C-alpha cells in the first residue's frame, strides 16, 4: 500500500458549523500539517461548532491525536462544541481520556536571564548565603562535638572505625603515587636552581622543608577532598534522596551527631597519619632526584637532618588537622543540604570538592601568614 500525504480540508457550512476532513496517513515521517495552520484557517471562519471527520483517513498514530487534542483545546477556549465522527476505533475514547482533566496552569515564573547571574550583587548574595549556611553548619557541628565530649551524642564508634578504614588504608595507593612525584618535582625544581651556585646538596633542605610544611599536607588534602569529601557528599546526598536523613531525624537522632561526626572525626584522625606518610615518601622522591644529580643517599640524609625540625613537622600536622575539618565540613554540608534528585546529588559532590579546595587554599595562605608573623 502506498502512503498518501496527510492533509485536512476545512469545509464551512453555515448551519452545521465547520468540518475538518482528515485524509491520508497521519503517521510519523509523513509530517502532517501542524495545528498552527489550522488555527489560522479557523480564525478566519469563526465557526459556530467544529466537527473532525475521519472518513477518508487511512493510517494514524499519536501525531493525529495530538492534532485532535489541540482542536479540542481550541474549541474549549473559543467556547464552541467539538465533535469527532467517522473516526477509527479508539480515537474517540483516547480523546475523551486526554481531555478529561483540565490543563494545569503553571504559576508564571519569571526566568532570570543568564546575564543576571553575572550581576555582582547576585554573586555577592550567593557568597553571603553560602557563608551563612557554612557558619550555621559549623555551629551545629560544634554543638554536636560538645555533646560528644559530654558523652551524650548519638555517635557510633563502629561508624567512626569504618570511616577511618575507608579514608585511610584505601587511600594509600594514590597518596603514595602523588607524594613521591611531588617530592621529585620539588627535587628537580631546587636542583636546577641550586646547581648554578654549586649548592646541589641543599636540595635536601628544600625537599624536607617543602614537604613537611607545605606540599605533603596540601597534596594529601587535595586528594582527600576529591576522594573522601566527594564521597561524603554523595553518601549523604543519596541518603537525603532516600529519605534516610528524615528517618534519622524523626527517630530523635541528630543527623549531625550520627552522620557528620563519625566522618569528620575519622578524617581528623586519618589526615595527620597520611600526611606523615606522604612527607616520608616525598622526601624519598626528592632523594631519587638528588641521586640522579650525584648526591649520595648518605649525603642526602645527613643534609636533610640539618633541615629537619620539630616546628616544621608540627606546622604540617596542624595544617592537616585544619584541612581535615574543612574537607569534612565542606563534604558533609553539601551532602546534608543536597536536593532530592540524582542531579542534585551530583551537584552536591561537585560543590563539596570545589568548596573544599577553595577552603584549603585560603586556610593554607592564612596559616602561612600567621606563622610568618609569629616567626615560626
Amino acid at each position, binding site marked *: 500500500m502506498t502512503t498518501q500525504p496527510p492533509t485536512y480540508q476545512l469545509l464551512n457550512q453555515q448551519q452545521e458549523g465547520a468540518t475538518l476532513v482528515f485524509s491520508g496517513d497521519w503517521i510519523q515521517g509523513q509530517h502532517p500539517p501542524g*495545528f498552527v495552520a489550522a488555527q489560522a484557517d479557523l480564525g478566519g471562519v469563526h465557526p459556530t461548532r467544529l466537527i473532525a471527520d475521519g472518513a477518508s483517513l487511512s493510517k494514524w498514530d*499519536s501525531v493525529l491525536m495530538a492534532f485532535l487534542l489541540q482542536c479540542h483545546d481550541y474549541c474549549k477556549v473559543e467556547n464552541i462544541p467539538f465533535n469527532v465522527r467517522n473516526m477509527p476505533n479508539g480515537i474517540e475514547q483516547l480523546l475523551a*481520556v486526554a481531555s478529561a*482533566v483540565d490543563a*494545569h496552569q503553571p504559576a508564571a515564573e519569571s526566568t532570570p536571564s543568564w546575564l543576571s547571574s553575572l550581576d555582582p550583587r547576585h554573586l555577592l548574595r550567593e557568597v553571603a548565603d553560602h557563608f551563612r549556611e557554612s557558619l550555621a553548619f559549623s555551629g551545629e557541628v560544634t554543638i554536636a562535638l560538645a555533646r560528644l565530649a559530654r558523652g551524650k551524642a548519638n555517635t557510633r564508634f563502629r561508624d567512626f572505625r569504618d570511616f577511618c578504614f575507608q579514608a585511610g588504608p584505601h587511600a594509600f595507593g594514590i597518596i603514595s603515587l602523588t607524594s613521591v612525584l611531588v617530592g621529585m618535582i620539588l627535587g628537580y625544581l631546587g636542583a636546577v636552581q641550586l646547581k648554578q651556585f654549586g649548592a646541589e646538596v641543599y636540595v635536601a633542605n628544600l625537599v624536607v622543608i617543602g614537604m613537611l610544611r607545605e606540599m605533603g599536607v596540601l597534596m594529601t588534602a587535595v586528594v582527600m577532598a576529591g576522594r573522601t569529601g566527594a564521597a561524603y557528599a554523595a553518601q549523604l546526598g543519596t541518603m537525603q534522596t532516600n529519605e534516610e536523613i528524615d528517618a534519622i531525624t524523626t527517630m530523635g537522632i541528630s543527623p549531625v551527631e550520627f552522620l557528620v561526626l563519625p566522618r569528620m572525626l575519622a578524617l581528623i584522625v586519618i589526615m595527620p597519619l597520611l600526611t606523615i606518610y606522604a612527607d616520608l615518601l616525598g622526601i624519598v622522591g626528592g632523594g631519587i632526584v638528588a641521586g640522579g644529580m650525584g648526591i649520595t643517599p648518605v649525603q642526602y640524609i645527613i643534609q636533610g637532618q640539618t633541615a629537619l625540625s620539630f616546628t616544621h613537622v608540627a606546622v604540617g600536622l596542624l595544617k592537616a588537622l585544619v584541612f581535615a575539618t574543612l574537607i569534612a565540613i565542606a563534604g558533609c554540608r553539601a551532602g546534608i543540604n543536597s536536593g532530592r*534528585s540524582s542531579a542534585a546529588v551530583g551537584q552536591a559532590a561537585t560543590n563539596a570538592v570545589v568548596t573544599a579546595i577553595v577552603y584549603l587554599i585560603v586556610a593554607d595562605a592564612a596559616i602561612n601568614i600567621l606563622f610568618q608573623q609569629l616567626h615560626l
Partner: protein
Amino acid sequence: MTDTNTDKPEIEVRDVTLAYGESVIQSNLSFNINRGDIFVIMGGSGCGKSTLLKHMLGLIPLSSGDILYSGTSFIRASEQQQGAMRQRWGITYQSGGLFSAMTLAENITLPLELYTRYTAAEIADIVAYKLALVGLAGYQSYYPSEISGGMQKRAALARAIALDPEILFFDEPSAGLDPISSRLLDELIVQIKESMGATVVMVTHELPSIFAIANNSVYLDNISRTMIAYGNPKDLREHSDQAVVRQFLTRSAAAVIEDKP
C-alpha cells in the same frame, strides 16, 4: 500498528527457571499471554514476581528456558533484534524510573527523539497529548521531584506509552497510592490499553486491581517455587484446586505468605 504473526500468542514463557547464582527462585514456569490480555503475575512478597518481569524484559539473563514474543525468541535474538523488540514495549518501574534530572516533557521526549521520525514541533505536540492522556496536561516543565507520588506514577505511564507500544509492562503500578488514585490509575490503564489495542503485563498483589482489570494471571508460590495456578483470577478465587491461591485471593489470614530475602 501492524502485526505479522497474529495467530501466535503475544508472549510465550517456556519452561523458565529463575535463579540468582545457585539459589533457584522459581522453576518450570510455562504460560502464554494472548494479544489484548491484561495479565497479572501475582504471589506473596519475595516469590520472584518482579524477578520474572525483569527476566521477561531481558534485564536479567535467564538461567534456562525461553521467552518468545510473537513467536520469536527474545533470548536467542541478536542485540539489534532485541532492540527492535524493545521498541514495541512500554515499561513502568516500581519506583517510577523517571529521570530526575529531566523535566516531564524531556522524559517523554527522549524516546520519541531516539526512535521516531517526528519533527521537534510534532514531538512537542505529542508530549502535550501524552501528558493529557494521563491527566497531567500543563506539567511539561515540572521535574519529577516537584510532583506527588501518584503524579510520578502517571508521568511514568506517559513515558511508557510515548512510542505507542504494543505491550505494556507494569511493575507494581499502584504501590504506594491511596485506594482512589490506585483505582483511577487502573481505569486509566484499561482505557489506554483498550484504545491502543495493547497487551498489558502487570506485577501486583493489589487484590482490587487484580479483580478489576485482569483477565488472566499466574500465581507464583514461594514454597514449592513454581507456578501453581494459571487462569482468570476470578475463576481461581472460586475454583482453584490450590488452597493457598484461594486464600491469597480472598485475603484469608491462613494464607501462607512467607517472606524470603
